[in-house]
């Protein structure tokens, strides 16, 4: 009977808060977390398998601005992060393991975002 939880509540008053002040302190995602992923164009061969296998049809193949020797069709995958469900199906099916995986999750934005810029930065100079 009575206030069973009172001692627990009182002891918590003197403990450190279990929440964090998020924008000031970084929120912790484990390195196993499935975060933002993009294609590394120094490896991508433009086979389009990721675009075919994407469950949410978030990947479209766009044409490359430069000619690359290992990419005969000159196309690369662009992930629409608004549509992506981060299941990493594309990472699994890639025959040349061209996807760069990160645990970065703070990609909410007021503008539509895609992986185009990140991928184009990986073009070998």
């Amino acid at each position, binding site marked *: 009977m009575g206030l*069973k*939880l009172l001692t627990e509540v009182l002891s918590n008053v003197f403990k450190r808060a*279990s929440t964090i002040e998020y924008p000031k302190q970084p929120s912790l995602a484990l390195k196993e*977390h499935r975060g933002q992923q993009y294609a590394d164009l120094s490896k991508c061969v433009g086979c389009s398998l990721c675009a075919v296998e994407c469950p949410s049809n978030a990947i479209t193949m766009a044409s490359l601005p430069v000619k690359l020797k290992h990419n005969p069709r000159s196309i690369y995958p662009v992930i629409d992060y608004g549509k992506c*469900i981060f*299941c990493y199906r594309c990472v699994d099916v890639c025959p040349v393991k061209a996807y760069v995986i990160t645990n970065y999750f703070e990609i909410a934005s007021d503008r539509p975002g895609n992986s185009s810029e990140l991928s184009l930065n990986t073009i070998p100079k």
Partner: protein
Amino acid sequence: MSLIEIPVGPQHPALHEPILLRVRADGERVVGIQVVTGYNHRGVEKLGERSTWSKDVFLYSRICGICNTVHAQTYTQGVEAIGGIEVPPRAQYLRTLVMELERIHSHILICAVMAEVVGFDSLFMLMMRDREPVMMLKELVTGNRVIADYYVLGGVRRDLDEVKKDKILKVLEGVEARVKYYKKIFMEDYTITKRLLGVGVIKPSEAVAYSLVGPTLRGSGVKSDVRADDPYAAYGEIPFNVVTYSDGDSLSRMLVRLDETLESIEMIRYIIKHLPEGPIAPKTPIRTLHEGEAFSRVEAPRGELIYHIVSKGGDKPYRVKVRTPSFNNIINGVIAYRDARIADVPVILTSFDPCISCTERILVIDERNGSTKVLSLKDLSRWGK
């Protein structure tokens, strides 16, 4: 005195998902209740027919956020039965591990929500805090806190190493102590017992007659659990007890969940100790199936989940019918509300662990003449305008 009708929902402080309960009350006493669903319908079953077998694993995971791995388990289990695909024993154990982690966090969540519904917010906050390490374990094993996406046809996607095993055992030790403490609170605290004890009583015969499932059924003293009755994954090899409480009220339904959480922790310890070696997925991905039909059932945190999968050959399913546990518990659970007070309505609903997004179907029933009709897509679009 004339009856008054009070709408509880679809937007209501005590409900976390949209559902409408039309409560007919005589003063404080509930005389009748009508459940209206349809606010969350997304057409997932139809969408699955357009996609391929392997992509549908991700789609059916998303029917319900909390019980996503059990949905994936039921679907892959059915597809594997049609295709005659052997799942390696290590993958079976890992699947069981993830399903039990999910059961732990689902049960802690609904107990916390129950504490909030009865107005005990400090208990709610403490339970949600102590649920967080379990979510972290799920992220460690699968790659995400909630939507695990851990399944492929014929196996699982990630392996477990020794470091992760140690981490799981260490965290679960803390969780076990906390759950034992919360069980004591639920059994002894005045605020909880005052609101839950003897509220929404379902007799065992009624629970069976109205085909209630899961902890709701076991809370009425009926020993029924798919994990024990019809073992799937690795459940045939793992020892565990089926928890039952005989009172049939809201409190015994919550205590079933808390006891099951402790059972799940023991099961995870057994899995980690006896994890077999070997591959975790088939070398070649499965793309097409021959003609066939499968009926697959799994014990989700909320009860028995059923998939009926029909294949006509090729790479797409012909039909996938989903019967979720909440569908039975919410709709047929109306028997529990009779003679309750209006303030008890959210408590009784929460004691069923309602998952509204699982429940949605389009089936129009005319109350006056009792006729039913299923709407076509054309009717739906006309209706939506």
